[in-house]
């Protein structure tokens, strides 16, 4: 670092000082010494009295010649008082003034007060003239001094004389030529210093140290020279706008000759880049040296062009190569960790030696090479990550055929979500989140497709889907920082995959619920059940053909209610109300009706037991209970011809009599296919206990068959057809005439289930055939309603 030089601002100090020493005052002429001349001399006196003591670092070899008449200066000169000075600053240089003042004060002679004298000033007849060769001689002194400074040799002249010399020349309006001479002298020394670096040292680090030394020396030397010529800086330079300050002049000379010794500049840059590369490759380097040299570049104003530009190119190449290499050899989690480390390093680099302005482009370059250019490859490899997570949960990942790399053996779930989180964070830095999101969407669809379309795994489908969704939600929370857009992506992808296969998912979800709501689910607490119902509802929400679900759910609910197999009526009702919230009351009206019927039936059975008909006509020992079902609420059961034993018919009639006596105007139809007869024959006692309640006959309809399910689905489709026809007729009746495209649009708005335009066309043509509609004669795109 540059050793500072301390200077005084004598005029300011002195002005403020109220001093009895007239030799130090500016305004009043000194009384202790006589003046024989005009103002010039008093000024010169002032200059003299401004002798300042300075101390210098011995290594520069500059020593004050102390044999002047100022003993006090001697003592002052040994006082190593120095303060820090910023070499680029022109003003505000402060003195170690102690020495100066003691010097000045030392001059005072004690004088007794004297009576006022009259002073007579006589003007001289002629102006005082300068000595001959004044300029040359004065400059010679300065030149020697400057030279000594650069050559690091002792100079015979003392500082005071040097300041005086500068002052003298400036005062006599020779500032301009002095400036030029100084410049020329400096230039020759600077250029030779830089030239001496040419061809120096093969070893780059050694070379850089030499450069550093040269720069350091230059700074010190320039400062000193500027110190000597401070007056010039303050007066001539300030007054001449086209002229640089001495410090700047020195910098400009250094810059000029550095660029002339181009080999030096390039070698320096090359050396710096090599050092940084070594550091990136893991070696320890001299960061201080780097820092200083980079500061040099900055000071010279060539940092962006000479250093930063090649540095960024170098960085780009380095990370381009590294990116490719690492991508080939490491798996994604490790790669991302490495990227993170590198980005930290580069950031630190800016704190430690690079200029702060480099940080932004540097990080951008690294990100680009390490991340941006590899997004696709990273994502491709990243499927491995997701598979790992899902495999960990035993989720079926059939349908995804990319090979798994090794390293799959031991996986902690936590690690992988962290890796995904790292990926998310890094990707967001290079605006690659969209790619990640897109890849996630593809992955969900592909995996989901495997779960949904594999017919052999149907019985596990709902469970797998629930697990799959739960895992995705977890990843969304922990790795994707609950990003809204990602949330939508998961939803859309799920909606897509669950509807890939028409009807079956809806059917399976209804069945899944049936299992859960059925009695016999030991060990499931109420809370757990509620939780499961909610999760299933999420899946249900994605289904487009909800009427298929309704048909199956209704069928299964009817069975549960009639057979008394519900695990908990509360749970059943809870599910209904969830469905109601989801789909509206229209969806659940009938289901609710079923519950009402069951409860009403209980009351009816009670009063039947008490009734006269039962008491009088029904044989004792017969326990009969009847479920009265309101048609319309319950699923339609195909009529079955079951011939009951005569007695049972009798009992049915007894009940019917009772019922119709209570509720007139109704029609009772026995659903014998739902009849269930438990016969307890105790042969020893010969008793028969008949409990006739309307259950499914086990003998006739054992398990529900595939045909039954198929027919349920078929009925839903049939029903849909009717609905479409009805809708078309309804719309056309209102509009009387309507274009084809508008009709299609209307239908899509009105119909609540998914349907293809092809199917709509079929129905329209069927209605044309049945003469409900016709095509308009003049415009075949328009249909007319035929009343």
């Amino acid at each position: 670092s540059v050793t500072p030089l301390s200077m005084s601002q004598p005029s300011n100090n002195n002005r403020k000082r109220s001093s009895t020493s007239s030799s130090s005052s500016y305004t009043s002429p000194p009384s202790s010494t006589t003046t024989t001349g005009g103002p010039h001399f008093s000024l010169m006196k002032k200059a003299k009295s401004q002798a300042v003591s300075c101390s210098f670092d011995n290594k520069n070899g500059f020593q004050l010649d102390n044999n002047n008449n100022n003993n006090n200066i001697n003592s002052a000169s040994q006082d190593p008082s120095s303060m820090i000075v910023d070499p680029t600053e022109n003003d505000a240089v402060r003195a170690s003034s102690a020495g100066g003042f003691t010097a000045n004060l030392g001059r005072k002679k004690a004088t007794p007060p004297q009576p006022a004298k009259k002073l007579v000033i006589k003007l001289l007849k002629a102006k005082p003239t300068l000595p001959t060769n004044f300029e040359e001689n004065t400059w010679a002194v300065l030149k020697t001094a400057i030279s000594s400074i650069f050559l690091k040799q002792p100079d015979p002249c003392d500082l005071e004389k040097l300041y005086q010399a500068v002052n003298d020349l400036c005062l006599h309006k020779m500032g301009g030529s002095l400036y030029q001479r100084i410049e020329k002298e400096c230039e020759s020394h600077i250029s030779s210093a830089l030239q001496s670096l040419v061809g120096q040292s093969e070893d780059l680090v050694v070379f850089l140290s030499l450069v550093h030394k040269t720069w350091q020396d230059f700074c010190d030397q320039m400062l000193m020279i500027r110190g000597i010529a401070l007056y010039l800086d303050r007066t001539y330079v300030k007054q001449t706008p086209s002229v640089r300050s001495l410090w700047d002049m020195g910098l400009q000379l250094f810059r000029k000759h550095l660029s002339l010794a181009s080999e030096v500049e390039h070698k320096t840059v090359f050396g710096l880049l090599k050092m940084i590369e070594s550091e990136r490759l893991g070696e320890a380097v001299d960061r201080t040296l780097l820092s200083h040299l980079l500061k040099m570049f900055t000071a010279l104003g060539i940092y962006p062009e000479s250093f930063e530009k090649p540095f960024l190119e170098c960085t780009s190449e380095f990370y381009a190569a590294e990116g490719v290499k690492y991508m080939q050899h490491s798996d994604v989690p490790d790669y991302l960790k490495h990227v993170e480390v590198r980005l930290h390093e580069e950031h630190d680099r800016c704190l430690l030696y690079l200029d702060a302005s480099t940080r932004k482009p540097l990080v951008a370059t690294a990100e680009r090479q390490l991340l941006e250019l590899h997004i696709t490859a990273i994502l491709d490899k990243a499927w491995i990550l997701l598979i790992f997570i899902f495999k960990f949960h035993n989720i079926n990942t059939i349908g995804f055929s990319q090979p798994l790399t090794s390293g799959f053996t031991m996986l902690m779930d936590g690690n992988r979500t962290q890796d995904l989180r790292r990926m998310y964070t890094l990707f967001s830095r290079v605006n690659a989140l969209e790619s990640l999101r897109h890849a996630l969407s593809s992955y969900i669809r592909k995996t989901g497709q495997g779960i949904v379309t594999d017919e052999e795994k149907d019985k596990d489908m709902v469970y797998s889907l629930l697990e799959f969704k739960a895992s995705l939600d977890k990843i969304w929370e922990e790795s994707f920082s609950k990003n809204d857009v990602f949330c939508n992506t998961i939803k859309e992808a799920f909606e897509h995959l669950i509807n890939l296969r028409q009807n079956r998912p809806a059917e399976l979800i209804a069945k899944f619920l049936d299992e859960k709501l059925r009695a016999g689910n030991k060990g499931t607490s109420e809370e757990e059940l509620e939780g499961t119902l909610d999760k299933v509802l999420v899946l249900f929400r994605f289904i487009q053909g909800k009427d298929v679900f309704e048909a199956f759910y209704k069928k299964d609910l009817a069975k549960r209610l009639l057979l008394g197999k519900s695990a908990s009526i509360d749970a059943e009702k809870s599910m209904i109300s969830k469905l109601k919230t989801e789909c509206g009351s229209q969806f659940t009206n009938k289901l609710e009706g079923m519950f009402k019927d069951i409860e009403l039936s209980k009351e009816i059975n009670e009063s039947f037991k008490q009734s006269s008909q039962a008491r009088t006509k029904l044989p004792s020992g017969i326990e009969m209970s009847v479920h009265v079902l309101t048609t319309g609420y319950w699923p339609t059961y195909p009529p079955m011809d079951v011939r009951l034993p005569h007695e049972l018919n009798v009992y049915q009639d007894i009940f019917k009599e009772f019922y119709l006596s209570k509720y007139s105007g109704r029609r009772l139809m026995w659903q014998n296919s739902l009849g269930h007869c438990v016969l307890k024959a105790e042969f020893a006692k010969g008793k028969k206990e008949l409990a006739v309640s309307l259950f499914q006959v086990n003998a006739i309809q054992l398990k529900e068959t595939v045909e039954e399910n198929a027919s349920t689905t078929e009925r839903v489709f049939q029903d849909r057809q009717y609905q479409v026809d009805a809708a078309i007729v309804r719309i056309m009746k209102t509009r009387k005439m309507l274009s084809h495209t508008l009709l299609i649009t209307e239908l899509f708005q009105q119909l609540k289930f998914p349907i293809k335009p092809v199917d709509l066309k079929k129905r329209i043509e069927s209605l044309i055939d049945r003469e409900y509609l016709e095509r308009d004669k003049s415009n075949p795109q328009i249909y007319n309603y035929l009343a």
Partner: protein
Amino acid sequence: MRRASSKKASSNSTTSTNSSAMDLFRSATGKAATKELERIDQLFYSYSNESSGMIDPEGIEYLCSDLEVEHTDVRILMLAWKMQAEKQGYFTLEEWRKGLKALHADTIVKLKKALPELENEVRRPSNYVEFYSYAFRYCLTEEKQKSIDIESICELLELVLGSQFPQQVDLFVQYLKTQVDYKVINMDQWMGFYRFCNEISFPDFNNYDEELAWPLILDNFVDWVKSKQS
């Protein structure tokens, strides 16, 4: 060759309705016209079946050979159209009168001469739609029949559109014979195809839009052609 057995010399028909219709004719028109009408009737009787009082398929065959036209020729269909004949293979007296009167033909020779002009008349775009639709209805032989089997439709298409849109007909017939979705064609589909030939550019189908009100069978047809082409 005329059917000798059914030749009747007088214009007196066996049924009374005919004679009152005759009176109407006579009174409505002038003497020359009456003469014409008489000859038309005579011509009718030379082909008609005695018991049914109509020209039946056999009679039509004779007529065709006298006209020197194949009975499968489209001109016979056009003649039927001119007569607005209702039942395929049969002409009633009314229909015969209507047709021949319009053609100003009271002899076989004149009738034969009238055929080319009839053809021109039919082929006029304004008439052709009507003729085309008539052709379909003409083939509905049963009481409540609304559609025609594929085989017959193919023949009909050849007959009626074969000269005008040979390539389209060819392709469509091919399609009809290979597909399995449709066993019959109804009027709507029949008419649709005519519109299709007239409006849609061939063979690229560039201006065909299946989201418009084209009958579904044509959507399927276009898909079939496109998949064949690729």
